C-alpha cells in the first residue's frame, strides 16, 4: 500500500475508473488543461482526451444539468463543482432535478452521476468558498451524500459513487486535500455506502463526525485519553444512506455522545444525528447529546474562520462535560 494524500487518492481513483469504464467522463471548470484548481484531475485530459475530460464554461447549473442528459445518453459523468459554495448556483438542478429523475418517470431514467465538490473551512478561502451545507443536500430525496475523511475512504467511496446507479454528491474536505495522508489500497478498492467506520475505539464517549471533523475528533480523543477519558470516534463516511445501526450500537456501548460538525448549528446534519441516536439508543443515554458546530452566521471571512470552525479545544471541552455529566 502506498501513502497518498487525499487529493492524490481522488485523482488516481478517477484515472482508474476512467480506464475501467469508457463511459466515465469528467467535466467541470478548469478540470482539463489545468488539471483542476486543486489538481484533482491532473493528467487526466492528457491520458483520456478532451472529449472525456471536459473544460466547461463557468456555469454550474449547466454542469449538473448537462450531466443529467449525458447520463440519459449512456455516459457516466463525474462533474466537479470547484467549491461547494458554487453549488448554490446549481441548487435548482441538484435538488429539483438530479435526485428526482428516477421517480419522475417511474424508474425509467436512473441518473448515474457523481458530483464532486470540496468544502469546509480552514484554508483561508474567500467568501462562499468554504460553505458547509451538506445537510441541505441530505434533505433532497433521491441523492446520496458522501463525505470521506481519509485518503483510503476517498478512493473507496469515490469508486463506489461512480459505479452507483443513483446520483451521488461526493464532498471532499478542502482542508484535508493535502494534510490528510494515509495508506491507500492499490487496485480495486470499494467502500460500501451506509457503513460508518470506527476511526478510534473507546468506551466512555462516542464522538460522531464526518469529513474534516474526523481529524479534529481524533485529536480531541487523544487529548482526552490524557484525562483518563476513553473516546470512540465514529466516522459516518456517508450521510445518505446513514448507518443508523452503527449510531445506535455505538451509543449503546458508551451511553454518551458528542456530534462534531462545521456547518451552522440550526438544522445542520448534526441535528439529524442527535435525533437518530435518541430514537435508536434512548435508554442507553447517560447524558444529553452535545453538538459542537459552527454558529448560525454566514461562515466568516478567512481572518475570522479559526474562531468559527470547531477545533480541538471546543471538542475536548464538550467531551469532558459529557463524560462528567
Amino acid at each position: 500500500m502506498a501513502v497518498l494524500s487525499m487529493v492524490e487518492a481522488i485523482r488516481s481513483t478517477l484515472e482508474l475508473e476512467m480506464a475501467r469504464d469508457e463511459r466515465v467522463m469528467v467535466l467541470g471548470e478548469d478540470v482539463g488543461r489545468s488539471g483542476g484548481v486543486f489538481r484533482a484531475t491532473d493528467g487526466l485530459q492528457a491520458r483520456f482526451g478532451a472529449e472525456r475530460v471536459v473544460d466547461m464554461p463557468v456555469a454550474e447549473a449547466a454542469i449538473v444539468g448537462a450531466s443529467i442528459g449525458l447520463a440519459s445518453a449512456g455516459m457516466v459523468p463525474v462533474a466537479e463543482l470547484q467549491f461547494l459554495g458554487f453549488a448554490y448556483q446549481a441548487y435548482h438542478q441538484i435538488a429539483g432535478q438530479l435526485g428526482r429523475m428516477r421517480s419522475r418517470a417511474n424508474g425509467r431514467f436512473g441518473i448515474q452521476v457523481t458530483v464532486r465538490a470540496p468544502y469546509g473551512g480552514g484554508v483561508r478561502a474567500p467568501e462562499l468558498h468554504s460553505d458547509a451545507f451538506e445537510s441541505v443536500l441530505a434533505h433532497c430525496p433521491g441523492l446520496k451524500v458522501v463525505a470521506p475523511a481519509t485518503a483510503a475512504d476517498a478512493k473507496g467511496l469515490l469508486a463506489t459513487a461512480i459505479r452507483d446507479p443513483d446520483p451521488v454528491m461526493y464532498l471532499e474536505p478542502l482542508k484535508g486535500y493535502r494534510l490528510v495522508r494515509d495508506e491507500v489500497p492499490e487496485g480495486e478498492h470499494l467502500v460500501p455506502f451506509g457503513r460508518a467506520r470506527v476511526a478510534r475505539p473507546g468506551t466512555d464517549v462516542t464522538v460522531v463526525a464526518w469529513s474534516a471533523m474526523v481529524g479534529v475528533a481524533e485529536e480531541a480523543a487523544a487529548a482526552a485519553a490524557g484525562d483518563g477519558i476513553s473516546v470512540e470516534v465514529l466516522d459516518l463516511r456517508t450521510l445518505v444512506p446513514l448507518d443508523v445501526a452503527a449510531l445506535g450500537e455505538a451509543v449503546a456501548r458508551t451511553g454518551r455522545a458528542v456530534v462534531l460538525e462545521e456547518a451552522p448549528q440550526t438544522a445542520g446534519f448534526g441535528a439529524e444525528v442527535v435525533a437518530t441516536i435518541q430514537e435508536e439508543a434512548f435508554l442507553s443515554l447517560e447524558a444529553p447529546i452535545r453538538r459542537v458546530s459552527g454558529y448560525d452566521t454566514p461562515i466568516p471571512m478567512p481572518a475570522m474562520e479559526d474562531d468559527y470552525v470547531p477545533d480541538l479545544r471546543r471538542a475536548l471541552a464538550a467531551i469532558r462535560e459529557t463524560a462528567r455529566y
Partner: protein
Amino acid sequence: MAEPLRIIAPDGSQVGEPPAGLGDGELHSMLRLMLLGRRIDQKAISLQRRGKLGTYAPLSGQEAASVGSVFAIDRASDWVVPQYREQLAMLHMGLRLSTYLLQRMGHPAGAEIPADANLYPQQVALAAHLPHAVGLAWGFQLTGRDAMVLTYFGDGASSEGDFHEACNLAGIRGAPVVFVCQNNGWAISTPWSIQSAAETIAGRADGYGMPGVLVDGNDVLATYEVTRKARERALAGEGPTLIEAVTTRLGAHTTADDPTRYVSPEQVEAARALDPIARFTAWLRATDRWDDEAEALAVKWCDGEIERAVEEFDATPKPRHGAFFDDVYAEEPERLRRQRERFHADRAELEEG
C-alpha cells in the same frame, strides 16, 4: 421586427413554398393531431371542472407550433425533451393519451413513458430541462449516435438562467439540439413587452454562436420546414439552432388562471384571427387535400381517441398507498425501507379502524 417565416397566411392563402417531403397522408395526420389537441383541451377542462383532473395547461392556439416541429424529426431515433404544453408532441412520440390525463391528476401511472418512446418526462420547472436536452444531445455525439434532440420552452422560460447556460453550452459543444421556443406572448399574465426589452428571442442566438430562426408558429408548414432544416443541420454536425415560433394562447395559462383579468377582448379577437387550425384547414381545402368527408372522419377519429383514453383513465384504479416510495433509488436505503414499513403498518392500523 423581422418578419417570421410564413408559408400559409392567416387567411389560408399560400405565400411560400410548401415542404417537398410532406405527402397528403402526413399532412392529414398533422391536421388530425391538431384537431385532437383542441378537443383534448375541451375534455380536460371539463374533467377538471368536475374535479377529476388537477390543474390543466391548455394548448389551444399552439397546435401548429407543437405539431409542425415534432413531425419534422424521426421519432424512431430522435428525442423530445418537453416542457408542459407539448401534449401533442408527447403524444406523437408515443405517450398514451390516458397516461397524459392520469398525469394531470397526479396519478403515478401518469409518469409511465413507454420504453420505446424517445421522450423525457415533461418538465415543470421552467427551462430546467434545457441543460438536460443539451447533455442528451452531447451524449449522442460522444456515443456516436446519429440522432438529435428537440426541446421546447416558452417565452417566460427564456428569462431563466438555465436557458442561457443551456444555449451557451450547446453552442460550445456544437450539440445536435434544436431549441423551439413557443412564444405565445404571455407568461401567465406577463406580456412579452415586460418580459424582455429584446424584440425577439431568436435574436439572442447570435450570442450563443448559433442561428436563430423566427417562424410563424401558427403556420404548421413553416414550423415544420424550419425544424426540418435545423434537424438536418444538427445531424450534419453543424450544431444547434434556436427557433422562435411566434404563436398564440387562445385560452388561459392553466385552469387555475383567469385571463379576463389581463387580456382584453380585442386581444382575444386578434388571437382568434390567427387560429392555426382554421388556417391549415383552409389551405388543405384550397389545394384539394381536404373536404367535409375528411373532416367528419377526422372528428370521428378524435372522438374515438378521447373516448378510449377517458375509458382507460376511468378504469385505472386509485394509486396504491405508498407508491411514492417506489423508484426513489435503484436500491432502497435501509432508512427509507424502515419508513416504508412504518407507513404500511400505520395504514394497516388505520384500515383495521
